[in-house]
């Protein structure tokens, strides 16, 4: 087959200028890579979630109640509007890894050897018959688990090294211990991942629950309503009716209810935030890749200008030359796809496994969905063609005489602008430095595109630092609100005097205060309820919290039905100071007046009330459900040790403990949860930085190529290899410095916007802290990277011989 010479020229241009080809191909490939990692990763996550979430048949609502039997499950199941009702038994127990049955005291040594941790155990009468909130065994784990066995939720691996075949020693209420063997893992998409809750989730049989001295009754009523079109308010109304008409009449107390937004996952907000971040990253990567391609194609055309003139002089039409250049660009795109597609697919799968593992979305596809691959291929071809369209349009329309007169010494274009003249007036600089500075501003369009890429990358890196700083400050602010070390929650109300006195007996405890916490439902105007609220009764003069008042005031000793709400509640229910609200507390509706708003403490929506008033209202007669203690050791290990001793002390007294938690450990869990978002931001920053570095390297390579003839002149008049090298490294460094300045200017508004975006996405008020340290650190990093990105081009420049340089076309 005869190939026309013009197409042979296209092929030879690709092969003859390998560095240029590599540069353009890498510029496009990095965009394809970024798009595929981000969009492909997101696609895998969405597919995984879209498959595994519906497959679990998520519950419409879960009621947390006092123990009940199968008769209630049957009654609720026959109630109007209920499709399926199932009962579960849940309990939180404390365990240590390994067989510690024969390990004797002292407890402190045991704590150090194998620290105690909480595990939420869930039992169903017949796991195989479960139809709502279904759990799926993974990797051949026995299902249902046998007696004395526990199957762990897959996310347990996020925080625990436990593997199939390991044993754990569980502390029993009577002070004895029992072994449970880890039989394997199961995926429960409706469980809160361990990294978020800070505790493991395990599945057992009712027999095992009884063996662990957790009683026989069920305490979770899992409901699936028959009307799939109900909104959350509708489900809430239906559940309230079931609670009042079916559950309460048989003497079962509902402590709280979980009513998710139908069809949405409990981590939906975080996933939404991550998804928004990923889309933003994808758009930025696409844009930046486009910038790179415009830059490199413009430079390619500048290099080819004389050849364009020759081709036109011998009869080449604009349409023919345009077709040649577009083909060249399309081939670049094709080569970039060959590189970007497999790499992007691999890292998209890795990213999806990483993110899916954190969010516990369950099994996922190994490759990105087809539409993301089609998108990446389209991006690989279309972005370069679109980016090249304008430079090709203008380049092919340059008159033949101007094209033929194009030389490597472009003396006409520098010196006319204000910047050029200002640089020309700079005095006292060594000639090579002055040359570097002036060269930097020679091709202003290219400089602008390179800087746009670098400024965006730099500002994102700086903003990620500020987001991380803001998260740490949020955690610190929350820690300042809480002035306690360990929190002990009791299974039932206990005498305040007793638990405070007994807590003080534990070694290291320096202070104790009892609180009364009760579940509450806010009655909304439309008849629906928000029943995931709690009222915390505490002494108004408490020293265990330092309320951060936003509006209004804190509680007073003389307050009766006054409540203070936190910003979480204000935001979700649109409440304000002075408003009267109706709460369903302890079986009756009560009126409360809002007197103040305090900052959220990352504990969800909460009402704070005068403890003595609340105690009288619900008839608890001085009992409390929680005791907060201060210790003399504020470290995580110290607090965990005290928590363990408190648990043992109360258990030994016969007081049932529902859970203990160290404050520092709480803060660490919180930082971990928010840190996931920072991890995604860091991925974003790394990808954008890679685009920036490739962009800068590309610009420097182009600058060197275009300056080849000048380099020859400099060499001819005595410039050494080192002098040439220095000229180009200085140029790269100058661009880096300008990028840092631009990035620093943009980073404050970007940081603020990112923090507010995360805040609205995760529904947690975040403190804003701009990280100047990161900005300063970036100065050094950007300087180093920009100098490094110039090394190869500068080395190439220094190796150009005078003969080659002068002969360069």
């Amino acid at each position, binding site marked *: 087959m005869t190939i026309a*010479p*013009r197409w042979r*020229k296209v092929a030879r241009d690709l092969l003859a200028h390998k560095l240029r080809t590599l540069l353009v191909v890498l510029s496009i490939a990095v965009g394809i890579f970024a798009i595929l990692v981000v969009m492909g990763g997101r696609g895998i996550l969405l597919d995984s979630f879209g498959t595994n979430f519906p497959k679990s048949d998520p519950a419409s609502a879960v009621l947390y109640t006092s123990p009940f039997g199968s008769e209630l499950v049957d009654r609720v199941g026959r109630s109007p509007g209920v499709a399926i009702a199932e009962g579960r038994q849940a309990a939180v127990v404390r365990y240590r890894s390994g067989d510690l049955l024969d390990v004797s005291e002292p407890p402190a040594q045991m704590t150090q050897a194998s620290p105690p941790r909480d595990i939420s155990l869930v039992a169903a009468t017949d796991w195989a018959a479960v139809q709502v909130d279904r759990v799926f065994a993974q990797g051949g784990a026995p299902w249902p688990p046998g007696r004395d066995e526990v199957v762990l939720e897959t996310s347990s691996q996020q925080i625990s090294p436990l593997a199939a075949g390991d044993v754990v020693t569980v502390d029993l209420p009577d002070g004895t211990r029992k072994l449970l063997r880890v039989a394997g893992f199961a995926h429960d998409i409706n469980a809160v991942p361990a990294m978020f809750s800070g505790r493991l989730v395990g599945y057992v049989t009712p027999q095992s629950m009884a063996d662990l001295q957790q009683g026989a009754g069920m305490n979770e009523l899992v409901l699936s309503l028959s009307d799939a079109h109900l909104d959350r308010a509708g489900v809430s109304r239906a559940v309230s009716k079931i609670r009042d008409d079916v559950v309460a009449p048989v003497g079962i107390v509902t402590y709280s209810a979980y009513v998710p937004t139908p069809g949405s996952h409990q981590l939906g907000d975080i996933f939404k935030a991550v998804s928004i971040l990923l889309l933003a990253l994808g758009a930025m990567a696409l844009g930046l890749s486009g910038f790179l391609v415009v830059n490199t194609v413009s430079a390619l055309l500048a290099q080819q200008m004389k050849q364009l003139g020759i*081709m036109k*002089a011998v009869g080449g039409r604009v349409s*023919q030359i345009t077709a040649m250049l577009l083909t060249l660009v399309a081939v670049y795109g094709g080569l970039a796809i060959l590189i970007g597609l497999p790499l992007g697919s691999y890292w998209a799968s890795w990213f999806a496994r990483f993110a899916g593992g954190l969010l516990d979305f369950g099994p996922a596809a190994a490759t990105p969905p087809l539409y993301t691959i089609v998108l990446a291929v389209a991006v690989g071809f279309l972005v370069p063609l679109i980016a090249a369209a304008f430079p090709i349009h203008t380049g092919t329309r340059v*008159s033949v*005489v101007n094209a*033929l007169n194009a030389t490597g010494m472009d003396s006409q274009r520098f010196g006319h602008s204000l910047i050029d003249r200002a640089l020309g007036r700079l005095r006292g600089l060594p000639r090579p430095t002055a040359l570097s500075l002036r060269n930097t501003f020679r091709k202003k369009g290219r400089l602008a595109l390179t800087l746009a890429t670098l400024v965006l990358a730099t500002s994102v890196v700086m903003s990620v630092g500020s987001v991380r700083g803001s998260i740490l400050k949020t955690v610190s602010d929350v820690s300042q609100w809480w002035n306690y070390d360990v929190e002990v929650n009791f299974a039932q109300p206990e005498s305040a005097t007793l638990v405070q006195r007994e807590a003080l007996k534990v070694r290291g405890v320096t202070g104790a205060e009892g609180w009364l916490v009760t579940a509450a439902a806010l009655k909304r105007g439309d008849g629906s309820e928000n029943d995931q609220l709690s009222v915390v009764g505490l002494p108004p003069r408490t020293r265990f919290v330092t309320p951060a008042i936003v509006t209004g005031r804190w509680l007073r000793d003389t307050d009766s039905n006054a409540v203070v709400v936190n910003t979480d509640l204000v935001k979700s229910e649109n409440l304000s100071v002075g408003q009267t609200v109706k709460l369903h507390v302890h079986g009756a509706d009560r009126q409360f007046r809002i007197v103040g708003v305090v900052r959220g403490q990352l504990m969800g929506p909460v009402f704070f009330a005068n403890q003595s008033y609340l105690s009288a209202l619900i008839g608890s007669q001085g009992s409390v459900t929680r005791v907060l203690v201060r210790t003399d050791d504020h470290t995580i290990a110290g607090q965990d040790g005290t928590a363990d001793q408190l648990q043992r002390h109360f258990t030994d007294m016969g007081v049932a403990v529902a859970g203990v938690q160290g404050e520092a450990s709480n803060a660490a869990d919180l930082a971990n949860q928010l840190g996931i978002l920072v991890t995604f931001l860091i991925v974003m920053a790394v990808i954008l930085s890679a685009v920036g570095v490739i962009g800068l390297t590309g610009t420097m390579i182009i600058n060197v190529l275009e300056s080849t003839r000048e380099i020859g002149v400099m060499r001819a008049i005595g410039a050494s290899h080192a002098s040439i090298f220095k000229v180009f490294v200085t140029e790269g460094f100058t661009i880096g410095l300008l990028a840092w300045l631009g990035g620093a200017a943009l980073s404050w508004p970007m940081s603020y916007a990112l923090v507010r975006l995360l805040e609205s996405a995760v529904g947690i008020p975040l403190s804003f802290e701009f990280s100047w340290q990161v900005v300063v650190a970036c100065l050094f990093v950007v300087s180093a990277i920009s100098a490094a990105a110039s090394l190869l081009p500068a080395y190439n420049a220094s190796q150009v011989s005078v003969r080659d340089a002068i002969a360069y*076309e």
Partner: protein
Amino acid sequence: MPALVTPGSDPLISLSSVVKTYDTGEVPFTALKGVDLTVEPGEFVGLIGKSGSGKTTLINMITGIDRPSSGDVVIGGTPIQRLSENRLAMWRGRTIGVVFQFFQLLPTLTVVENVMLPMDFCDVHAPREREAFALDLLEHVEMADQAHKLPAALSGGQQQRVAIARALANDPPILAADEPTGNLDSGTAESVFELFEALVERGKTIVMVTHDGDIAARVERALHVRDGEIVDDIRRGGRA
């Protein structure tokens, strides 16, 4: 050779009151100041003048590589300043072969591919026949044995011969050459000139820019250009 004019018709090349002014920033520079010129078919015309006299600008007007600021350029009856860039490129490819001082061969194409390129652009000859035609032209300029080398492997004189072969690729009636011997040693320049003379004998019209006095003395018609004007028009054997 396509017949652009018939005997007794208008001249092959006609320039009337051609002015070319360049905007150089501060003060406009007029390179051609109302040039009038006619060239008949088969003439061998030399444009002679010092550097900056306007001779290259003048030949660029004839080839359509540059456009006049005012005035008319009519080649073979076609007012070329009225053609679009696209039509001008096509017209040029078929009508005028251009030879440059620095040869301007495309470095990534072999010698024979460079010669085939104008045929390819202007769709002259069947694609399968183009290589044979190109080799024939290279034979004519004694470069057939170098046909598959890249330009970088050739000497200046050899490259210029290839450039002439490329200029002849579509068998144009006119050859425009800008200092074709300016970059060659005297021996090579002589052989290139002889090639041009042979082409004129075969009926080609050649317009050649040169500042070489010896060569200028040997052309059939010498036009002396100074400060953007034709100041002398000398035909061999007497002033025009």
